């Protein structure tokens, strides 16, 4: 069944590709496309960060019964643009006793790690830069690179607060990476593939979250918890616990360098939400019901990237909700939660999922006429 999708951005990209290939040799066409993709990704990165910062400040304010930014523009809507301009023209303070090379390289590790992850996320139908056949694995591997930036920043700052912050971050990241990875592996068992595009395609009539019912819901919750912990945001914000460590690993940074850390933190939040969307909530796939062709057509009129961003936005909201509900964990509580609860549950859960899939007790296995592809 082919549905009409008038607002899809893949029309534009396909047309552009055709024009470029018609006008010049393949090498130059590809080169231009690569540059364009890079520019678009970078722009998306910056714009998303601005939107996220604005949304975070606004929602945070609402949770604290405040109004939040409300001076710059209507409802303070250009507040984060003003903040960006401020941070761009701020002086970068050169600290004397830092390890020069590492100190200046560290922010780039953060940015590059989240940029690399960005490349593999399917934002919409045909809006994925690289579709690896090991997409889940790639995303996990690359997003873990960011911790190197944190550790380098803490080490090279030559400052005990930064150092403590970075070490905490290291312990936290190594612990929770396990859970996040295993939770995603559970879903890989369910989907039978690591390729993100295929994972999305396989969720056409039934999201993985429902397809794997018990097991998938547990994996979803565990992934959200550990993803939240990986982004160093409250209640897992020990690495930058401001009441103890000033700002943790980025204490010594200023201006644009601090901006990089700030940006990466928000984008990591989005990336976690994006991966969870793709793997659990059907990614960019509109809500589809088998047989209801009119309904499906209406759903397809809403372009796929909007579906993706809407689902991701819900998860980002949940992340903010959690952040403003719970107090910060102590380091021993943090490690307890991971090693005594999440990891054992996860290991049992992946086993249960294998049993579910093998015995055909998933929703697609039980009701292939309703949910099967």
């Amino acid at each position, binding site marked *: 069944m082919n549905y009409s999708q008038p607002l899809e951005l893949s029309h534009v990209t396909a047309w552009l590709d055709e024009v470029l290939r018609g006008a010049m040799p393949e090498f130059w066409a590809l080169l231009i496309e690569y540059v364009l993709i890079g520019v678009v990704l970078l722009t998306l990165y910056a714009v998303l960060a601005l939107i996220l910062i604005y949304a975070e400040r606004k929602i945070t304010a609402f*949770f604290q*019964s*405040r109004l939040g930014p409300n001076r710059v523009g209507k409802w303070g809507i250009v507040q984060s643009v003003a903040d960006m301009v401020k941070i761009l023209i701020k002086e970068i303070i050169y600290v004397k006793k830092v390890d020069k090379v590492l100190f200046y390289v560290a922010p780039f590790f953060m940015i590059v790690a989240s940029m690399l992850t960005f490349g593999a996320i399917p934002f919409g139908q045909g809006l994925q830069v690289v579709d690896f056949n090991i997409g889940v694995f790639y995303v996990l591997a690359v997003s873990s690179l960011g911790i190197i930036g944190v550790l380098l920043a803490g080490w090279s700052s030559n400052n005990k607060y930064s150092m403590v912050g970075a070490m905490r971050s290291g312990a936290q990241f190594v612990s929770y990476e396990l859970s996040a990875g295993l939770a995603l592996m559970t879903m890989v068992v369910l989907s039978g593939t690591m390729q993100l595009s295929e994972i999305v395609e396989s969720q056409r009539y039934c999201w993985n979250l429902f397809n794997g019912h018990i097991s998938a819901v547990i994996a979803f919750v565990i992934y959200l918890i550990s993803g939240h912990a990986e982004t160093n945001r409250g209640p897992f914000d020990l690495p930058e616990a401001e009441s103890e460590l000033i700002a943790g690993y980025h204490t010594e940074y200023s201006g644009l360098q601090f901006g990089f850390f700030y940006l990466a933190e928000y984008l990591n939040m989005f990336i976690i939400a994006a991966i969870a969307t793709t793997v659990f909530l059907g990614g960019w796939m509109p809500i589809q019901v088998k047989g209801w062709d009119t309904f499906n057509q209406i759903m397809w009129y809403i372009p796929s990237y909007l579906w993706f961003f809407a689902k991701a936005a819900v998860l980002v909201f949940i992340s903010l909700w959690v952040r403003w*509900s*719970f107090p910060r964990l102590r380091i021993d509580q943090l490690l307890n939660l991971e090693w005594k609860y999440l990891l054992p549950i996860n290991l049992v859960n992946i086993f249960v999922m294998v049993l579910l899939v093998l015995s055909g007790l998933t929703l697609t296995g039980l009701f292939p006429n309703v949910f099967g592809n």
Partner: protein
Amino acid sequence: MSGNYFSGLFKGVKSLLVGMGETWKELWTKKVTAEYPENRKTTLFVSDRWRATLTMPHDENNEHACTSCKVCETNCPNGTIQVIQKVIETEEGKKKKVLDRYLYDLGMCTFCNLCVLTCPSDAIVFSKDFENATFTRDRLKEQLNKEGSKLREKKKEVKPEAEKSAPEAE
């Protein structure tokens, strides 16, 4: 041991959900932010106990209640108030000291309220007009009695006037 593990787990999850329920309710409560410059004429609330600046209430006949007894000046711990008297001749030919200028330096005032408390004729009160910022220190020095104002004649009707001003001075 294992019983503790699972009951602890479920208790923990439950308490987290209760907490999130609380914050969810908080999300929809009325916002308490006061948008100050816009609301100054509408919803701006200043506590009755707030002491912003010393004022001397004048009635419609441009009369005040200050007898220039200088109690406030004596009581002021840091010389904020300066009462300058002048001598006039009454209709009966008597010479009488009355208030000439009542000088008040906002920049030196600690808002201790001693002047208002000790004033025997309730001639001065602290107002709630808090927008007192100026560009120079000299602008903080003001004269509280208006030009051409004079002491209110003692009558029986003064009583309710005094009662009215008393709660303000509290």
